[in-house]
């Protein structure tokens, strides 16, 4: 039983990272229709920037995020203006290819600046083990799970109640109609990139604090794909929940079935989801009325 609890607990931790990264994907996909293949790289770049801020100013976690998040949003905005905006009106496929190129560039830039060797990065989070019941946790693990909870709630409230959040859903639902009520679609796209970069930075910093900060961090972007698909691609909240589910499935597979299966179990889930519910657990089946 303890073994099971431990697997679930660590599953929740890696699942929370997947969930956060997947939320970033979903936010951009929902409002722009683009699968951003540079999401993992955005996670990596913002984590490294946060690392530099941390080593320069020696901040504890919350002040560190207070600085990291706005800088990340700025990066999201600049990337959108530089790489995505000029592609407006091009086929979606072409824009997706641009994000693939962007991913390679960001990876290169990160290694150029910070080098290929991994760093230890606590992000100002305490390191003494705490127990919840009989299960031991590092505080960084709890921060990660807590961050997912906070971001999920904030994301839900934003999309549900704020003018900008509703406008984002409106653009996703019908772009022309959004223009006809005076919503500036390009501004919505920019906001989506900014918020997505903010979420990416939270994911990146906390992932690095739990494991390490290394140039292979971008790979977490790909590993979050099963969560993105399970969540339904365009469901911000769904991605968060799906991340947790995938994290647990992976860990339980590893614990009870075998080591090697951890890596592929998520992708097995993708295949099954695509066969059974192509729009994911929470994604919107297109509402079409005649």
């Amino acid at each position, binding site marked *: 039983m303890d073994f099971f609890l431990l697997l679930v607990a660590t599953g929740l931790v890696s699942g929370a990272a997947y969930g956060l990264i997947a939320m970033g994907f979903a936010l951009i996909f929902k409002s722009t229709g683009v699968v951003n293949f540079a999401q993992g790289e955005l996670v990596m770049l913002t984590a490294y920037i946060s690392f530099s801020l941390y080593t320069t100013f020696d901040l504890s976690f919350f002040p560190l995020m207070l600085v990291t998040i706005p800088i990340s949003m700025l990066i999201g905005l600049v990337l959108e203006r530089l790489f995505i905006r000029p592609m407006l009106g091009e086929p979606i496929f072409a824009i997706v290819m641009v994000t693939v190129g962007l991913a390679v560039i960001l990876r290169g830039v990160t290694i150029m600046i910070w080098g290929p060797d991994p760093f230890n990065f606590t992000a100002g989070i305490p390191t003494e083990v705490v127990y919840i019941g009989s299960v031991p946790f590092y505080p960084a693990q709890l921060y990660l799970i807590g961050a997912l909870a906070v971001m999920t709630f904030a994301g839900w409230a934003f999309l549900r109640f704020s003018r900008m959040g509703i406008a984002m859903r409106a653009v996703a*639902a019908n772009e022309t109609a959004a223009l006809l009520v005076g919503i500036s679609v390009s501004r919505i796209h920019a906001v989506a990139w900014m918020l997505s970069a903010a979420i990416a930075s939270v994911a990146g910093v906390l992932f690095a604090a739990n494991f390490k900060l290394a140039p292979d961090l971008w790979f977490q972007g790909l590993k979050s794909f099963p969560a993105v698909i399970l969540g339904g691609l365009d469901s911000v909240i769904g991605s968060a929940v799906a991340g947790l589910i995938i994290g647990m499935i992976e860990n339980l597979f590893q614990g009870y079935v075998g080591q090697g299966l951890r890596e592929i179990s998520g992708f097995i889930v993708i295949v099954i989801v695509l066969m059974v519910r192509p729009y994911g657990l929470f994604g919107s089946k297109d509402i079409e009325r005649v």
Partner: protein
Amino acid sequence: MLALKNIQILYDRAIEAVRDVSLEVPTGQIVALLGSNGAGKSTILKAISGVLYQEDGEIMSGSIQLEGEQISGRTPRDIVEKGVLQVPEGRALFATLTVEENLLMGGFTRSRAETSEGLERVYQMFPRVKERRTQISGYLSGGEQQMVAIGRALMGKPRLLMLDEPSLGLAPQIVDTIFDAVIALNRDTGLTVLLVEQNAQLALQTASYGYIIENGRIVLDGAAEKLRANDDVQEFYLGFSGGERRSMRDVKHYKRRKRWLS
């Protein structure tokens, strides 16, 4: 209020959808723009709203003026802020949003106070919409959707309201409700209306002036009662076989039920 002068519009720099159209919508009037499938009616409304670029359409020559001010080339947002609102063909609601969210988005360019005021007005005008306010708009009936679409446009505080085939596919009583509402708005608040229709009978009863467009050209215009009395108008409609579909038509995924003048 609105004046189009010698407008020519191309799609993809090749397809000439509107050849040479001039028309005027005087302040406080309802003007009808009539024509069959593919005549270029929706293209003209898209040009006025500034959303042609979305479909690779472009105004090649001519001018669009709102009270003497050039508005072609402005962003859709600017045009909405100037009070020119469109109810698009096929309603184009934000299907995944609730009715009330759709209406709130209609007031996107307006202040919070104006928005809640507008909401009250729309609910008063269409009690059915109020009953459905928390429902997902994509699941409403066609008639309810049309009311929401009009309500959404009214939330933007229009001076000029442009309606693209509001009667499309709706039962006669619903059409009456909707047209009564438009007429009342025009009479009580002086709202200027540009009404695009295929249902000539209905449109010419509602409007004071009409233009008839065919293949991107205005072929006839005049006071509504004159057009109504004109035998050529009826013949024009009956004689025209709009049956064959062009490629663009086939892509549109809503069903169309056209009602012809009988």
